[in-house]
């Protein structure tokens, strides 16, 4: 958790066992599965309706859930990135 960061309610999740298992995991923990992230196979974007859309704290509860799920190999709660047009 970084005090300068703004966390969203989106979680990028790597589920190597595929889309069906990702859908199950999303349902099991109350996430909405937004689908694969671009062309990255087995990387999915989950949204949680009960996590604040913008927060200065990461959601420890959901981090723990995803961390303890053996079929989730990696996850990242999405953080706002300042990007400017040039």
């Amino acid at each position, binding site marked *: 958790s970084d005090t300068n960061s703004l966390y*969203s309610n*989106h979680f*990028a999740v790597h589920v190597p066992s595929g889309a069906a298992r990702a859908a199950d995991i999303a349902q099991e923990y109350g996430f909405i599965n*937004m689908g694969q*992230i*671009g*062309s*990255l196979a087995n*990387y999915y*974007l989950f949204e949680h309706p009960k996590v604040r859309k*913008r927060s200065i704290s990461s959601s420890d509860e959901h981090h723990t859930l995803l961390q303890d799920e053996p079929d989730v190999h*990696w996850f*990242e709660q*999405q*953080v*706002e*990135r*300042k*990007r*400017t*047009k*040039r």
Partner: protein
Amino acid sequence: DFHYYEGNSQASGQNPYFATSAFGPPYSTSGFVDPLFKEQWYLTGGSKDGFDMNVLSAWKRGFTGKGVVVSILDDGIQTNHPDLILNYDPRASTDINDNDSDPTPQDNGDNKHGTRCAGEVAATAGNNICGVGVAYNASIGGVRMLDGTVNDAVEAKALGLNPDHVDIYSASWGPEDDGKTVDGPGPLARRAFIYGVTNGRRGLGSIFIWASGNGGRHVDSCNCDGYTNSIFTLSISSATQGGYKPWYLEECASTLATTYSSGTPTLDKSVATVDMDGRLRPDHICTVEHTGTSASAPLAAGIAALALEANPNLTWRDLQHLVVMTSRPDPLVKEEGWYVNGVQRKFSHKFGYGLMDAGKMVDLAVDWGGVPPQHICKSREIREDREIPGAHLGKVKVFMDVDGCAGTNSEIRYLEHVQCKISLRFFPRGNLRILLTSPMGTTSVLLFERPRDVSSSNFDDWPFLSVHFWGEQAHGRWTLEIINSGSRRINQPGILKKWQLILYGTDLNPQRLRSRSLSNPTFQPSSSQFREAQSQGSPRFVPQDYLYPGASESLSQVQKPQMVRSQCQIEYWISDLAICVNDCPDGYFADVDKKECFSCPQRCKSCYNSTSCTACDHNLVLFGTKCLASCPAGHYEADSSCEKCPVKSCAACAGPMGNECVQCLKGTYLENGKCSPKCGTGRRQSSSGSCIACPVGCKSCDENVCTSCIENFTPSSDSSSCEQSNTVCPLGLFLDIETGQCQACQAENCQRCEGAGQCLQCAHGFYVYLGTCLDQCSGGSYLTSNRKECLDCPKLCTKCKSAEICEECRTDGMLQEGKCLPHCSEGYYNDVGTCSRCSQSCKTCIGPG
């Protein structure tokens, strides 16, 4: 902003120019066809020095981007813009912000960026709307991603949009350019880059073009932007119409090349392109005021699209090689800061390898055989705390000897990218300047001082990227220097914690043409890609043996007549392009009686008739009525034409003055810019045809052995040199004849002198130079073989080993076989500041082969 478009009737096809727009080149400057074409100075030789990016040359060869797909990652794209609609590609578009497929920008007056960039790439040609895209037949799409919260997943989605369909992604955004941010792609975006280059374009690799930065006023460094500082992106910088650094330019070591953009609002023109016709200004659909570094990346994307059409088999790495090899420093050399690397390529931290040249890109692309596989060689990680001194200009200098992974599958003999991964602590971080020097002696500045970077003290495994060592050898000693050169006071020293080199490159020569090698004529590429390419049909403009798929089809479409001559009323007809124009364009001459434009001879920019040129294409010179790669012997180059040297005995001269000879005819010797049959006192004839100084005290010499001595000097005991005669004065003093007393030589470390400030012999470890003593010979001079004095390098030479072996030339000199000449001799061609030999028995050439 401009409004030329008169309503929907043209969009429905009633305007004849609109009907031919997909094919007709926009050569007319009448204001009726592509009215802003005349404002597109960067396409039409309209820079202050008459340069441009040589796009017309690529168009004339038939390459207009057809079949190539470009996507602009930005704030969206106006899908129904009349100058884009014909080329709009929904499969290269999406809306990540609203999670739908329509990338139309939100109309708040600010979201015109992506649309403007798209127009630079693919505004349609031959209509009555705005200007012309560089790749005016390319497909264009846009991703709406900046009009909302951006995060790692958003970036990964954009960078990975439809990678088998989209060829080129152009991004003109990045982390804040505030001079204190160090940020780059997160794990997903990085994975998307890797997926793109390994799997995109059906395995050839996606092309990511990036605007190199916008932090000029904040003294930012684009090495701190992890997107431009990435090996996966072609980082593109900007130049003004005058050929200078614009105010918004960020300097860094990862910039690969440059396109024209804009300068100060009043003095230099900007970029002309389409504009979003929002509700606030519904009539303004074109602009001539697109500016900033963001104007540069799409121009580069357009040029890349031309190259991909010329050779669809190019990989993402091939394209980077083509840009390195064909970008030209010469239009930008007025701006200081050019250096020459170990393979004699000029590079700059402002402009990379120079201004992109579309004509040369497509020429080389059609012949390009494909680079060998990329090797990655990681050095050991040196984890040893080293103090970075807190004193102003204090520095730490560390070395690493690497073997380029010789003898392994990762061996690198020809470098591409070099990353130096550094972890350090220093407060304030912005005080630091970091330099990396290669085994071949090239120094690249990995980080310039950032006066605003006072909020942080760390670099944690930051992979500083340099492209300046491209083509050099990997093995040998690399030197890293970290200097506290900022102006802020430091309370305590910093620590370099660890560093590592990550070298990218190839074990084989990457410069391979189809069916031959640039440097090894016996080389035969054997990739399946090449064999497949050879089996296809033959395109025009390309020699029979350089065949590739797709080109013949696209060219036949370009050449298909779209008008008939009877439609041409008062204008001139160009039969090979099947169009009408008001005036004959560059490369054509007018036959007034026949009302027709005919092609000039090859390589002519303008001509009187089919045999007599009056001006030549870039990089060529006019000799009489012919265009040559360089002026012949006895001539010098002035304003791209050849003039006779004023002195007959000159084989080459730098200009019209009698003392500007740089090479003499056989039997005469060069001394002070003149040719004479004998050298003057104290100088001897060298094998290179010039007069060079004898050792100190010699009146005459044979090689470095004195044969007679000047006054007050006598032969040494072995008669090989001349020593100052014994005087009553001790070392460091000289006899003042007027007073009869010994006076101090004054020059520090001087042992013997003939007057104050006229040192003749220095203490051990010091060398005589212009009457003073130096501890080392400065740039522009060399140490004589007797290791006693420094002498100036020959004219036009800025770095040399001896009077005969020059290593670097001034910007107006060309390095040829160890000499600096004003232009390459017969049998050589200009290879970016260096003269390389033409193929065997070729008298004049403009490139290898």
